[in-house]
């Protein structure tokens, strides 16, 4: 079965968990026992049936009516298994949202049509971050259409507003729009008669359409990131994950130093193979040992970018200034940044340039980072896995960056 990871995005209470609950029920992807349990619990709290409780399992989530941490549930539709990733909408929980959304390549952005809800800063911030996490396709679900009498004008206005934001941040992926009521299950699996003016497809059809697209790295040559030694005593056996191209037996170059080695044997998923290609985790038997392994990059023809300094777009959950001490986690290795320079500050809630010389929590910016050591990297736009990193201030998560 084709599996696709789909993350929800959007401001708190705009219906992310409710939509997943609804999809699970409409596609018969959840057991009757779990639905009954959610029903019983809704009753106990004196609420009408809350489909979100199928996902929100923590006591604090149900009592408080919010999602605290990310979770997933699988719904199958027309032979595709959609792993629906729920994420919290609250600002202070954005680290959990990022943890969930980083697995997805498709997102459903929930925007409530209710007059006092609409497009919020957090709505746009989620899109800003999601793009940096690897999402190429977004379905914008204008939710709670039932609360505005299914009016086309409300929908059109929100669509225009969101579109101009996508323009601001130069979003180049696919964007689709669907008016829905997650709670009532309208325009989810079947088209709702109450929104006859909507000429597009129901949400699941749009999802199905996007599921057929697959993002391919721009780099076609071999790039494999070394995970480590398989046995510590014998430094000739290493494990690596192939991110692009194919690894074959014979001479390979190991970067950043450009050391040459011979790959004598390749083993993928327990079997000896002639070549290991994109997404394979391969055990490589080398002709001679390596001193270190983790974070090195294997190539066979073209050379990756070898540098000590990286220029990146970052989204920060902490205050970031020119003197901030941060560590960078890149290619499975941790680097204590020698120097951080803030070159531009960006408001993540509208994608626009902002004055100032430090980045506030939940904002973005362009930075130059001196890693103090050579690394082999690629631009994020060329090869995602070699162009993205997370950063920390001490043990505190600080945000995410992509190399430009």
């Amino acid at each position: 079965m084709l599996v696709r990871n789909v993350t929800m995005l959007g401001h708190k209470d705009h219906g992310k968990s409710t939509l997943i609950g609804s999809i699970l029920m409409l596609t018969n992807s959840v057991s009757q026992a779990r639905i009954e349990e959610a029903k019983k619990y809704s009753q106990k709290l004196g609420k009408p049936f809350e489909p979100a409780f199928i996902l929100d399992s923590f006591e604090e989530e149900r009592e408080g009516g919010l999602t605290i941490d990310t979770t997933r549930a699988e719904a199958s539709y027309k032979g595709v298994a959609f792993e629906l990733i729920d994420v919290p909408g609250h600002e202070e929980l954005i680290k959990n949202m990022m943890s969930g959304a980083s697995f997805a390549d498709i997102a459903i952005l929930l925007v409530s049509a209710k007059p006092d809800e609409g497009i919020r800063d957090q709505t746009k911030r989620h899109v800003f971050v999601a793009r940096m996490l690897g999402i190429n396709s977004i379905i914008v679900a204008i939710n709670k259409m039932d609360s505005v009498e299914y009016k086309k004008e409300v929908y059109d206005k929100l669509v225009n507003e969101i579109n101009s934001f996508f323009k601001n941040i130069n979003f180049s992926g696919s964007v689709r729009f669907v008016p829905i009521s997650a709670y009532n299950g309208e325009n989810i699996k079947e088209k709702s008669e109450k929104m006859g003016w909507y000429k597009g497809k129901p949400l699941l059809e749009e999802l199905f359409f996007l599921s057929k697209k697959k993002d391919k790295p721009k780099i076609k040559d071999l790039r494999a990131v070394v995970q480590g030694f398989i046995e510590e005593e014998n430094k000739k056996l290493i494990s690596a994950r192939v991110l692009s191209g194919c690894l074959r037996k014979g001479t390979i170059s190991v970067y950043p130093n450009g050391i040459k080695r011979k790959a004598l044997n390749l083993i993928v998923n327990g079997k000896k193979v002639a070549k290991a290609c994109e997404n394979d985790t391969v055990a490589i038997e080398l002709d001679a040992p390596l001193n270190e392994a983790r974070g090195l990059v294997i190539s066979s023809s073209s050379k990756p970018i070898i540098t000590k300094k990286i220029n990146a777009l970052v989204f920060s959950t902490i205050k970031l200034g020119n003197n901030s001490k941060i560590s960078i986690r890149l290619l499975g290795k941790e680097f204590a940044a020698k120097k951080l320079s803030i070159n531009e500050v960006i408001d993540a809630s509208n994608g626009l340039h902002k004055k100032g010389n430090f980045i506030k929590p939940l904002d973005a910016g362009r930075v130059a980072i001196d890693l103090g050591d050579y690394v082999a990297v690629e631009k994020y736009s060329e090869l995602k896995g070699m162009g993205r990193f997370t950063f920390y201030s001490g043990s505190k998560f600080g945000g995410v960056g992509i190399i430009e």
Partner: protein
Amino acid sequence: MSGVFMIEQNLKELEERSIFILREAKSKFKNVAALWSMGKDSTTMLALARKAFLGKVPFPVIHIDNGIDFPETYKFRDDLTKKWNLDLIVAKSEIKPEISGFSCCGSNKTEALKKIMKEYKFDALIVSIRRDEHGIRAKERVFSARDKNFRWNYKNQAAELWDDYSSKIDTAGHVRVHPLLDWNEIDIWRYIKKERIPVNPLYFSRNGFRYRSLGCTHCTVPVKSNAKTIDDIIKELKNTDTEERAGREQDKEKEYVMQKLRAFGYM
């Protein structure tokens, strides 16, 4: 693409990710151990470890033994330990008078595990839980820290983006490693079939009943089933509407029992 091909492809991806996670655990921690209940999931995990580390399981496996597991389970344990040359540690857990649900699994099993973890100074513990088993397990990270009292700070879990797993731990704490988090129950059975992984005979139907999820003799009950082969089980799972852990008493006692069990260090 055909359905059969897609299933194969999906299993290959799951397998790849699990191998990556197991190697990640081995390279990030000094002293790794795994829990082995002799159930289908933790046995599948061991088969994956054999693939990841070229034929051998390079860490000790812990059986938390309360002395009341099924005879079939003990035999299965001893046979496979020999066959796969496993480094088995048996953690004896005490039987207390109130031996069911929260008290059985909560105090008895967790206490036995605490003792062993301390004695051997393990800094990482591989646990074969899956997201589809339970709403609370679905909230887990692949690498999930526990403090020295085994507590899970579920309200403030570490960030886990892509495959950047956090291995930082407080003094005397440990990290739970979950290599099977992405697998579904049916994936496990399909993989068992494909790889011919040995399974405990209790999973197959006898006199109209089989165990779908295995605990000890006191807290597990069999479910109605005529599935006598792996193919029968796969077919049954395609059509079932009941929960896998329906035969586990502890999950049903009260609301949030699983949340509380896990917060206190349960698997």
